[in-house]
């Protein structure tokens, strides 16, 4: 057998794999010193009776890595000696480690999950998808060849996405400069992040005000990642919010989208007519009296973003209502005209 000799480096994955095997195999758990002195990858560097501080720090990092993979590494107090770090025991309970037996995926479902993983091709989510697919393959089901080829992709272009996602996972308060439309300068915000959601192609952060101390009970706010104009910094830890915050945030945006209604006239047979008619939720209120345009009602979440979009259509669109949107589109068109005059 090929046990490395003392002093030689054991590859990281071999040490992590050996740690998982050892902790899965033990019923009662292993103490830290048992792990460091016997498990492959640690034992080669263990100094009996000596200073093992480096090795202990290594073990702490490995524990985090393993937990991030979804391996339920738990600690058990020794009866009668609760709270003593030296006798604390580590183990991985088999039931919490293994995928429940009644969970299986069909070929069609596997095809869909492959596509779902393909959606993330950048940032940390692509790594998560890659590992999820490895576990899915472990079950042995092969995907069907899809009838039509797809290449779906959600982009994570906003620089704020990764730091916010990390803060979300660790339940940390965040600070960032936020530029509201119509304001000249960004203002610093401090909030408790609750969820990151993509709605109509744009990433939003759902967050709670920190005014209530450590409680996640402050008013809910929605921030567009695109308007976070500087570095995101993470602060103190807060309790994890309860419930499906992503679903709540999406429902909130949907409600806003439902209640905001704009009325526009689009010239027939133009790009605006086709694209706005194909937009989700567009209501067609029929031809205008002269017959050259159609009245469309559009739902929207953010007036400033809709105004940008509508300005792009130039003379093809005339905003009828609401008046703020009318003014915002006109102001944008005049700005563009001036900038290019």
């Amino acid at each position, binding site marked *: 057998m090929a046990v490395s000799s003392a002093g030689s480096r054991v590859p990281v*994955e071999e040490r992590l794999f050996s740690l998982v095997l050892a902790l899965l195999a033990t019923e009662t758990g292993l103490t830290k010193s048992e792990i460091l002195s016997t498990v492959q990858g640690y034992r080669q560097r263990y100094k009996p009776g000596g200073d093992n501080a480096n090795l202990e720090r290594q073990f702490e990092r490995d524990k985090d890595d393993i937990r991030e993979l979804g391996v339920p590494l738990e600690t058990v107090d020794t009866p009668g000696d609760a709270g003593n770090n030296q006798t604390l025991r580590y183990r991985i309970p088999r039931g919490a480690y*293994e995928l429940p037996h009644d969970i299986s995926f069909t070929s069609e479902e596997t095809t869909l999950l492959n596509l779902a993983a393909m959606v993330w091709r950048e940032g940390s989510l692509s790594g998560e998808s890659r590992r999820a697919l490895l*576990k899915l393959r472990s079950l042995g089901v092969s995907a069907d060849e899809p*009838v039509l080829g797809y290449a779906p992709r959600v982009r994570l*272009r906003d620089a704020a996405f990764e730091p916010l996602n990390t803060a979300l996972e660790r339940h940390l308060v965040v600070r960032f400069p936020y530029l509201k439309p119509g304001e000249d300068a960004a203002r610093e915000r401090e909030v408790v992040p609750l969820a990151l*959601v*993509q709605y109509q192609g744009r990433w939003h952060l759902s967050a709670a005000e920190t005014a209530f101390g450590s409680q996640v009970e402050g008013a809910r706010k929605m921030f567009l990642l695109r308007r976070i104009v500087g570095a995101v910094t993470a602060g103190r830890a807060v309790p994890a919010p309860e419930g499906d915050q992503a679903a709540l*945030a999406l429902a909130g945006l949907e409600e806003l989208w439902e209640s905001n209604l704009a009325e526009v006239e689009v010239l027939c047979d133009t790009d605006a007519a086709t694209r706005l008619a194909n937009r989700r939720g567009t209501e067609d209120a029929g031809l205008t009296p002269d017959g050259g345009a159609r009245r469309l009602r559009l739902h929207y979440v953010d007036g400033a973003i809709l105004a940008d979009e509508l300005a792009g259509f130039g003379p*093809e669109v005339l905003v009828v209502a609401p008046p703020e949107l009318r003014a915002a589109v006109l102001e944008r068109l005049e700005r563009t005209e001036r900038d290019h005059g």
Partner: protein
Amino acid sequence: MAEFQARDKLAFLLSLVPWLIEHDGANVAEAAAHFGVSPQQIRDAVELIAVSGIPGDTDSYQHGDLFDINWDAFESNDEIVLTNLVAIDDSPRFSAREATALIAGLQYLSSLPENAGSATLASLTAKLSRGASAEPAQVGVEEADDSGRGTTLALIRDCVARGTQLELDYLDSAGNRERRRVDPLRVESFDDDWYLRGWCHLREAVRTFRLDRISNAVITDAPIEHRASEVRLPDRLFDGSPEDLEVTIEVAPAAMPLLVDYLPEGAASTDADGRIRTTLRVSHFHGLKRLIASMPGVAVVVAPASARSAVAEWAAAGAARYR
């Protein structure tokens, strides 16, 4: 598949063992194809598994405490036979973040005909949640399954399944409307923008169609002449042509990501007083004027003068409608 990091390697080892147990005598090529990795990655992993195990009663990794394989079969026939098993029998659970990534990906794909309504999505989401070691939640994507896109996608998929051409009205950004017949090759999307790439019988070339610019699409009886397996699709949705016009623009740094699709590969950019000066390539000014007018105050055309005036006229015509 991308280069494995240490965490990927561990996930791979924990996933490979149960598969090998279920597929006794599988060969290296078969395993590599199933996991989407190279044969060498399989061999390396099997060699590592074969010498791994638990400290055991003696704390010294004795023979019975380790996995073992039939080395002869492995070395001479590339065949993987586990002869001793340790600690692992079943596949690992998903982590909360892994489940989240897949669930959010599924939500994004809710308008695909493969999703066949929200029932599949809901049952898959429930399975992934139950198969995760902690509750997934924090990232989500809007499920836009009631948009017109779903109907168009279903039509496109039907065409490919039947092997017949799709006929559609397409209005390009220059305002030309044409009835076209298309052999669908692939559907691509970036966030909220969905595209059909197909062989256009009118242009006799591969073309990209924005789904929201398609109207009156119908399935025809004419058989498809070009299939995805026979046509090489360029990597980029819109390929530049030598006749393209160069346009110099200045952009606020924060808005640069919005323009990446329009920038040629390796486009040079310089700093111009806090703004970024760069060059776009466009086939005509119709797309440009729409793009620039949708980024008021953020992106400005600097040259040529003809491009500047195309944008100015477009915006002026728009503003005139309010006066």
